[in-house]
């Protein structure tokens, strides 16, 4: 076995036709996973801002008990669209974007397995995003049944037109589903079949493990939502009776379809962020990830249990007692693999050499808020407690600690951490820390008050409420506006740094990982020669090389 075959497989030397700083490529049908990754991230961030503005209108309405700012139909549209945009147009695409950028680099591949499919999946995002936004201009307005879209509320139609906001909503969610499945097929194939020589499963960074686990959930559970959406679409547009109780249909069936996907979807969203934590804590603690193998495998455990928990959203829905008990047990079981991860992160930073850079601050803040959300999550799993707080602000508070406190904060950590790699520029540390301080205070001010409100019985989705709930609502609204403000330093930082930041070295954090062995930003083909991996992903505190051929990875 000589080195001839290796030379043989090297990509023929085509001079890179495009200069590295060609901004136009970000508006083109590029098949480079790095371009697509950034396209995803930027597009989803735009929708994050739109969804955030909607949430501020919601909090402005709720600053007083009366419904005195906007019409109730508009209010209902606001929270429906806020939820839909944040989930389908911010969290999902931003996570897919990050994974798109990182996974091929981390496993030592030149691109995703199906580059054109990848690009097609991305371009669906702006398409359905714009489609969804156009429903504001329909005579019947947008969908107003909440992001759950439970029938019969969602199938009620006060106008004569067939093209209602609900119709458009289902269509948009369906396109989002197609895009997600295309992405999932691509990621799973890439991770299983495109790993560099020597990159065994147990040498993959935990981030890749979590993306793998999350994408398997997409493949296994998303089709259930698709099935439910198809039936709902026919109920809305063709007068079928699947969920219509007037004609013998069963509205609870939709809830099963919906939650069979939409609870596992939470793990699709949070698992990659667990991966981000697992990457960032070791780098800034200068210690290996504690219990790497167990942490890696616990992601797959979460995947397995995740498809068996959906009924915990339906304790009050007309589910029989035995189902309530069964799903209580499975839901609480999720706490075990999750707990393993939390303890592993704490053990990772324990006795480390901590550097409190912006990504580390975001991760530490997110870790604490995640633990809090996990505790309220176990409370919600308990049937008796859930019977009281189900559909109240307690739930809203709980899942915002997950979706903002954990996922969005974790996403910011990831963006700061890999920003030098993606752009070749350093961000401004001061602005980053300001962003963290504002966001951390904002999240807690905004979402903590929702817990006492829910315990006292304030229901979610209300456009007006009893005066006794006013105090905590005012606090929450102030928090929301602060949280809105917190994105300003982030935007300034990102735009400013990208335009005129200090040039970044290849590995500014002295991190271990294939992506840090190539230049910042990486060349189109990622690696001049494919890496040959010879050790595990977290060799901090040792001096073993990660790859056999470090010098050959880069050009020149």
């Amino acid at each position, binding site marked *: 076995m000589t080195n001839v075959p290796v030379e043989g497989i090297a990509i023929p030397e085509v001079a890179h036709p495009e200069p590295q700083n060609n901004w136009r490529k970000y508006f083109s049908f590029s098949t480079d996973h790095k371009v697509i990754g950034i396209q995803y991230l930027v597009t989803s961030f735009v929708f994050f801002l739109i969804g955030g503005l909607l949430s501020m209108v919601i909090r402005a309405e709720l600053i007083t008990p009366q419904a005195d700012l906007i019409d109730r139909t508009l209010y209902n549209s606001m929270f429906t669209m806020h939820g839909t945009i944040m989930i389908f147009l911010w969290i999902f695409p931003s996570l897919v974007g990050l994974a798109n950028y990182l996974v091929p680099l981390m496993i030592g591949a030149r691109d995703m397995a199906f580059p054109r499919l990848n690009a097609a999946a991305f371009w669906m995002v702006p398409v359905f995003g714009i489609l969804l936004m156009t429903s504001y201009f329909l005579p019947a307005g947008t969908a107003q049944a909440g992001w759950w879209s439970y029938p019969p509320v969602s199938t009620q139609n006060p106008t004569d037109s067939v093209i209602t906001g609900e119709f458009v909503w289902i269509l948009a969610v369906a396109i989002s589903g197609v895009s997600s499945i295309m992405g999932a097929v691509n990621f799973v194939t890439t991770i299983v079949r495109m790993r560099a020589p020597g990159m065994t499963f147990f040498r993959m960074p935990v981030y890749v493990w979590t993306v793998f686990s999350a994408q398997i959930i997409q493949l296994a559970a998303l089709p259930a939502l698709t099935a439910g959406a198809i039936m709902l679409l026919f109920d809305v547009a063709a007068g079928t009776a699947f969920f219509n109780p007037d004609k013998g249909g069963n509205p609870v069936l939709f809830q099963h379809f919906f939650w069979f996907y939409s609870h596992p979807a939470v793990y699709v969203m949070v698992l990659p962020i667990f991966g981000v934590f697992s990457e960032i804590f070791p780098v800034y603690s200068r210690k290996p990830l504690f*219990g790497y193998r167990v942490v890696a495998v616990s992601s797959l455990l979460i995947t397995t249990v995740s498809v068996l928990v959906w009924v915990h959203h339906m304790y009050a829905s007309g*589910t029989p007692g035995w189902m309530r008990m069964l799903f209580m047990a499975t839901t609480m079981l999720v706490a075990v693999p999750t707990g393993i991860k939390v303890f592993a992160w704490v053990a990772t930073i324990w006795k480390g050499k901590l550097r409190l850079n912006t990504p580390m601050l975001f991760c*530490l803040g997110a870790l604490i808020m995640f633990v809090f959300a996990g505790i309220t999550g176990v409370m919600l799993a308990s049937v008796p407690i859930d019977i009281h707080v189900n559909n109240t602000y307690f739930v809203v508070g709980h899942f915002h600690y997950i979706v903002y406190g954990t996922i969005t904060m974790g996403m910011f950590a990831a963006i700061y951490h890999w920003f030098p790699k993606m752009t070749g520029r350093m961000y401004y540390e001061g602005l980053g820390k300001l962003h963290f301080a504002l966001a951390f205070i904002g999240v807690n001010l905004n979402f903590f008050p929702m817990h006492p409100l829910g315990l006292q019985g304030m229901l979610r989705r209300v456009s007006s409420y009893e005066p006794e709930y006013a105090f905590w609502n005012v606090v929450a609204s102030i928090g929301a506006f602060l949280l809105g403000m917190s994105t300003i330093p982030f935007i300034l930082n990102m735009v400013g740094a990208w335009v005129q930041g200090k040039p970044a070295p290849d590995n500014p954090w002295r991190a271990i990982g294939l992506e840090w062995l190539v230049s910042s930003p990486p060349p189109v083909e990622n690696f001049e020669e494919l890496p040959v991996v010879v050790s595990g992903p977290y060799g901090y505190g040792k001096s073993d090389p990660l790859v056999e051929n470090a010098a050959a990875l880069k050009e020149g």
Partner: protein
Amino acid sequence: MNLKTIVGIGVYVAVLIAASIWVGQQAYGWLPPQASAESMLIDDLFSLFSAIGTFILLGITGLVLYTVFTQSVSRFDTSDGPHMEGNVKLEIFWTAVPLLLVFFLAAYSYQTYQQMAVRGPMDLVHLHHMPGTTPTAYAADLEPEPVEEVEVYAKQWAWSFRYPDTGVVSADLHLPVNKRVRLLMTADDVIHGFYVPAFRLKQDILPKRTTEFEFTPVREGIYRLNDSQFSGTYFAIMTANVVVESPDSYRQWLARAAAQPAVPAENPAYSEYTNKRLKRFGGWKTIAPAPPPLVNALAER
């Protein structure tokens, strides 16, 4: 492990336990008054969860803050931490303890749920065979107790309550204190939810079906009933009063109401819909509220 470490861990755990017990006590104060027998069980459970949760949250936060304040190094320090890849004993410990803990919490929740004996929604499979009479596992213990039956009607966006013995229809739900109540709940149009925070009880009401629900109010007073399942435009103002009173005044109220003619109830959703002056910014056409129910007893506000 030296003596200093052991004492340190001991003090840390002691402080955590003290804080947890304190939070567990405080937890009762975060909830509305306990107006049903079930609410007491739920509050005890919640208090326990809060105490355990406090232990975990403060425990982890404390470790993280301790690490941050003692282990941070300057950005010019390029040294690495110790190369610790894991510790099998420790990992088994923190897998086994949470596992036992969740089994305990699940079992304890199950026990509470059984004691509540909420005659919840019936098994869907049996729903159509005998609406309203499906036996549940818990029904047996309750049989001897006399039960007050009330029919609950929910529609967009009004509640009404019918007392089958007298035929009285009311806009408020009047209940005698300390007596088990069975609600036979139906919805006209969409899924609604019966939720009285002071009772800690919540049950969805499916359209075209009778959903049975049982509980025992134990504290006199006026409480608020909400619609807990999003039901459309005027969802937020679909509320009603629940009046829990002594058996005597309950009977007197029933007798008084039986003598009244049925008149349309006051209905906030209906009046907001018809009152154009309330129009605020924006908005689209909405499902029209159903006409207010005809009631013998108007709401006491």
